[in-house]
């Protein structure tokens, strides 16, 4: 029992240090890969607590490797838009000029009701006042109301690319 107590303290300290090094925020702010890694670390960390026969290094080394891989991938994503797009995805515009883009909702497998629920959480009752409604890579909805978008337009390249690719789709939806 004493060994389990000491292991628990060690693992707690190491996992906390690991999360600090990775710079985690709240779960709702995490990218998909970050959430997956957090789950894997927690699962791996619990193994030597469940089985005292298992060496502690069998969990600590995988945790270190996971943190190292996560740090390297986050550096790569910082330098490469393509890598970021592949690993985390990119923002998806679901509302444009007050119109809900049904094709985008189908792409994300989100229903109208899900979208209205997200809008209500932002105190928005009607999509007509929304210039851009964007589902971010972490699954949250960002809303740019009419008049909020500056004259310079959207500065995010990911979002500009998405809007450019939508131009054709939005025209077809408007005609439909």
């Amino acid at each position: 029992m004493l060994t389990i107590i000491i292991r628990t303290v060690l693992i707690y300290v190491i996992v906390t240090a690991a999360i600090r090094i990775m710079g985690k925020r709240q779960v709702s702010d995490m990218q998909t890969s970050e959430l997956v890694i957090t789950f894997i670390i927690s699962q791996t960390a619990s193994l030597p607590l469940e089985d005292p026969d298992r060496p502690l290094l069998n969990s600590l080394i995988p945790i270190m490797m996971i943190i190292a891989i996560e740090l390297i991938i986050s550096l790569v994503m910082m330098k490469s838009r393509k890598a970021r797009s592949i690993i985390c995805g990119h923002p998806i515009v679901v509302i444009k000029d007050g119109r809900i883009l049904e094709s985008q909702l189908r792409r994300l497998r989100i229903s109208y009701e899900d979208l209205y629920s997200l809008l209500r959480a932002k105190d928005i009752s009607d999509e007509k006042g929304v210039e851009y409604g964007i589902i971010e890579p972490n699954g949250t909805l960002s809303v740019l109301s009419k008049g909020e978008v500056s004259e310079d337009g959207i500065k995010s390249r990911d979002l500009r690319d998405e809007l450019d690719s939508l131009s054709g789709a939005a025209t077809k939806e408007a005609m439909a």
Partner: protein
Amino acid sequence: MKRGWIAVVMIALSLICGGFEYIFVTSNADVYAGMLDDADDKMEHSLIKDAESVVRRLDHRFRSERGVLNMFMNHGGADNISSDLAMLCRYAQTGDTEEFLATSARAKREILTMRESKRLSWGNIF
């Protein structure tokens, strides 16, 4: 960039630990298996005292390295090998050749399994 260096250090530490584990476990497993073969040979040739001496040296060596081995292998596995070595000492003392050889075969199998589990092979990876 600081985090990049942290990542590099972590990978280096992991590789050093992995390399040390591989070298330590496999080289010692080879020594243990070799000593068991030697003891078996002496027992088969009725050199009971010599066999007992070899087994006692092996038992002493295993017990002294057990702390490090426990860091790299399942403690139950190390306990089994330790128990077998203790029994071998007893069988050598009483001159019970059949039990000695049977227990020695079991201990050798456990030691070779311990070594094989550390090898970098497709079987171990998957």
